[in-house]
């Protein structure tokens, strides 16, 4: 049946069949199915996640009718996990939906091994104590964790995984890999075979800009002691030189050449980000290394040997004004260089695998090919244990946030969200739950918040009084819109982690529903 493909058509255009397959294999555990949890899962179920398990020990109450779409009047007094699970199942019958009527806190305390079966755990509306325990459990079993919280007009999303490596980062604006600063012999040969001074105006205006730049920069270099343009003045002169070669004003290929002329002056070699990755300590691989690091080790060997300081060529070129045959020839030249680079990397991979005593064919050709294509764009994300962040936040960052106007509300909410949790474990209720105790709760919350600031090493720092009383005004309210926003982000991050595509959020995302000036805090 062709139905699932067209059902997922709009997302397959984003993460492709491979991404979809990863989603369909994934199993998700949700802790607490209030609006934040329900909305998170809704987005994943619609997208065709493999299975969901909803953990919640509470019964549906009247108040749930005011913020949770996954329960209705008939649900009252029934298990919330059961009701939410049934409604989610309605959204997509290819998802396996299960529920466990048990409090997440109890499950964390009594059955940590339970979490081992999942790809990813999403913990919503959980207090600090339980989060810290769960985080350690997930680390131990190497299970991905997303923490999501909605609280009044604020909230947070935080990922916790030891390490998440992405090959297919799909960055938005990434410079194409044309090597105009360092053309290889075949590219030069092809350029030489084309006459820039052709008298045929159609050919002249359809000579691809890659060829124009390779040839003219050669001309420039021979007049400048073999050097490519580097100073601002030289770059300007080089552009003028390009312009002087036009034979009419409507030659788009020459306009493209002038726009792209900076590419001949780009520094050779790898970016600082890639430099950091190939020099990471994980490149010292052993038999237990991830395939990702085997590939990076092979990449490093390639860069140091065949690559002459460069990573493997990506192989694809952007569209450009050109005769069809010139363009197709160029495509082939780039592709065959990429193929040659791939073969070299493949040899390194096999050699390394042999060296560490693993089957040299254990990493698939397609995996290596995809790695080569994305070698310039690799990303390694590491997350601190939440407990480590709480115990020893990066002090310089905290101080910067506290004094920076753009960050002061976000860091205030960060501290206050933690203060709320401490308040709640002290008093067994949220601050501001009862109208009559607003003033007392505000000053209690303030005291706790100041204590947290001190623990963070920011003695003497204070938070805005307005923000503290605002936090008390929320009284633990979970607004549907805030939950939908936070749940939206949590599900988005889940998709990025599971598909191993795109770049997941690092740091703690603090939502600011007052004026939407939300921030990422790196602590």
């Amino acid at each position, binding site marked *: 049946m062709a139905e699932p493909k067209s059902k997922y058509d709009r997302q397959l255009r984003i993460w492709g069949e491979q991404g979809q397959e990863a989603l369909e294999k994934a199993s998700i555990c949700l802790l607490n199915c209030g609006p934040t949890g329900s909305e998170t899962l809704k987005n994943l179920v*619609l997208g065709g996640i493999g299975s969901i398990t909803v953990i919640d020990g509470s019964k549906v109450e009247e108040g749930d009718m005011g913020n949770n779409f996954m329960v209705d009047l008939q649900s009252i007094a029934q298990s919330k996990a059961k009701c939410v699970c049934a409604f989610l199942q309605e959204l997509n019958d290819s998802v396996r939906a299960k529920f466990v009527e048990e409090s997440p806190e109890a499950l964390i305390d009594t059955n940590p091994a339970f979490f081992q079966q999942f790809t990813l755990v999403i913990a919503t509306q959980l207090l600090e104590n339980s989060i810290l325990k769960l985080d350690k459990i997930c680390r131990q079993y190497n299970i991905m964790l997303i923490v999501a919280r909605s609280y009044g007009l604020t909230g947070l999303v935080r990922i916790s995984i030891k390490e998440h490596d992405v090959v297919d980062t799909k960055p938005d604006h990434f410079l194409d890999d044309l090597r105009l600063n360092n053309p290889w012999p075949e590219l030069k040969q092809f350029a030489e075979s084309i006459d820039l001074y052709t008298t045929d105006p159609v050919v002249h205006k359809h000579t691809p800009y890659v060829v124009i730049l390779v040839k003219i920069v050669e001309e420039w270099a021979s007049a400048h002691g073999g050097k490519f343009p580097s100073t601002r003045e030289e770059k300007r002169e080089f552009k003028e030189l390009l312009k002087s070669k036009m034979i009419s004003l409507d030659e788009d290929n020459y306009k493209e050449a002038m726009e792209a002329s900076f590419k001949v002056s780009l520094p050779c070699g790898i970016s600082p980000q890639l430099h950091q990755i190939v020099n990471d300590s994980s490149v010292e691989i052993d038999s237990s290394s991830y395939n990702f690091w085997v590939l990076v080790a092979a990449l490093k060997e390639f860069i140091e040997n065949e690559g002459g300081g460069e990573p493997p060529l990506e192989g694809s070129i952007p*569209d450009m004004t050109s005769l069809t045959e010139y363009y197709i020839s160029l495509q082939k030249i780039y592709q065959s260089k990429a193929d040659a680079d791939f073969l070299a990397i493949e040899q390194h991979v096999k050699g390394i695998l042999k060296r560490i005593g693993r089957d040299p064919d254990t990493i698939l050709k397609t995996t290596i090919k995809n790695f080569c294509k994305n070698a310039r764009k690799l990303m390694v994300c590491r997350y601190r244990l939440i407990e480590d962040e709480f115990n020893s936040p990066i002090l310089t960052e905290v101080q910067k946030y506290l004094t920076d106007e753009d960050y002061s509300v976000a860091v205030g909410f960060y501290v206050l969200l933690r203060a709320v949790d401490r308040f709640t474990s002290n008093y067994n209720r949220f601050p501001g739950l009862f109208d009559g105790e607003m003033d007392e709760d505000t000053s209690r919350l303030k005291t706790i918040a100041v204590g947290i600031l001190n623990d963070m090493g920011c003695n003497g720092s204070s938070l805005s009084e307005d923000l503290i009383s605002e936090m008390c005004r929320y009284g633990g309210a979970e607004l549907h819109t805030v939950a*939908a926003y936070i749940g939206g982000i949590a599900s988005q991050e889940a998709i990025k982690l599971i598909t191993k595509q795109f770049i997941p959020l690092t740091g703690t995302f603090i939502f600011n529903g007052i004026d939407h000036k939300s921030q990422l805090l790196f602590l």
Partner: protein
Amino acid sequence: MDNHNSVSGENRWRDLDKLLVRPGNIVGPNFEPGPQLRDDLQAYAKVLVVGAGGLGCELLKDLALSGFRNLEVIDMDRIEVSNLNRQFLFRLQDVGKPKAEVAAMRVMERVSGVNIVPHFCRIEDKNIEFYGDFNIIALGLDSIEARSYINSVACSFLEYDSDDKPCEETIKPMVDGGTEGFKGHARVILPGITPCFECTIWLFPPQVKFPLCTLAETPRTAAHCIEYAHLIKWNEVHGGKSFDADDPEHMQWVYSEALKRAELFGISGVTYSLTQGVVKNIIPAIASTNAIISAACALEALKIATGFSKSLSNYLTYNGAEGLHTKVTEFWKDNDCLVCGPGVLIEVDSTTSLQKFIDLLREHPTLPISKPSMVHRGKNLYMQAPPILEEMTRSNLQLPLFDLMGRIPKDVIHVTGTVTLNDRKTSALRKLRIVFKGNVDGVADMDMAGGA
């Protein structure tokens, strides 16, 4: 006992009430906390959701669970299979049914007490009075043309006082969302105060089109081959028959022609999926981004209605593809905006007939608008359609505009017609401030000349 199945309502809004009933220090200027506020929200606030697609479904749910009770939704589309990955109010068995009707029904089924009136029609099919009835308009659209139209309608209600300050009670607030893949925007438009859609139309770059000579002579990519088959070959072969992107046979034909052309030129990458994407200009869409953007819009709608917190001022951009980036930008309104400004001032002679006036509009340097229908204070001066109204108002064409407007020396009229936007003809509504010169009672010619 069935008391479990009855909801008194007192406890139901316990979360929302915390924010509506209690005073706060970081709130909107018009915030009056108290139980009355939620009652008023439920009794009086009326919101129109434009579009029942990815954003519209979310908006309806979000608004219903934010305490709004009176909602209406307008959408001309029917449900398709490819909607189901994000438009969570629809099921496989709903395919083919009107989106507005199914969406309204599903939300009413789940959220007791909310009333949602669906409108299965084009946005242009409703008259201005229909739009005038709402306190807030929430836009969940995917086209510039539709946004532009609703914006012009909302701005047409705006009146300015004699100092050219916007009259607060005539402001029709809008919240607008848009998404593409992992990216999106949410904005608040208070016509006359914050920029309207037209003031910042430059935010939407014009769509890139391939030059026809590339398609015909030097194709290089799969998309070039597809567009050749779609835009050139189809007409060559099928003559007068127009191409229908929703007809699978037509799409299949374009695909196979594109494939042939690609083979001829040695180009790879033509697939059926890409053919659909290029021909229908499909924008990738996922549930999470729609949820995030709609939630931001609905939250702002609740703030506009109650003042319970400060407002987004005035444009939020969201990008979730690389890490997570959000940014708030405060754009400024264009004081000379044709749509939300005080209106285009037009001086006409008091003897000018309506027909002559229509001719003038077509030639007007800043607002060439053709095929206009005109309304003055709720009265139809001339209507292009439907035929019965056209016939009824046709005789007005020969009468002086001055007489038709009740011999008032200066007043505002609303004109709907066709304008050209990004090389495409599109519906538009414009507000004109008419000032009569010549023999106008009590007003000398000299004074009027100074007002130009």
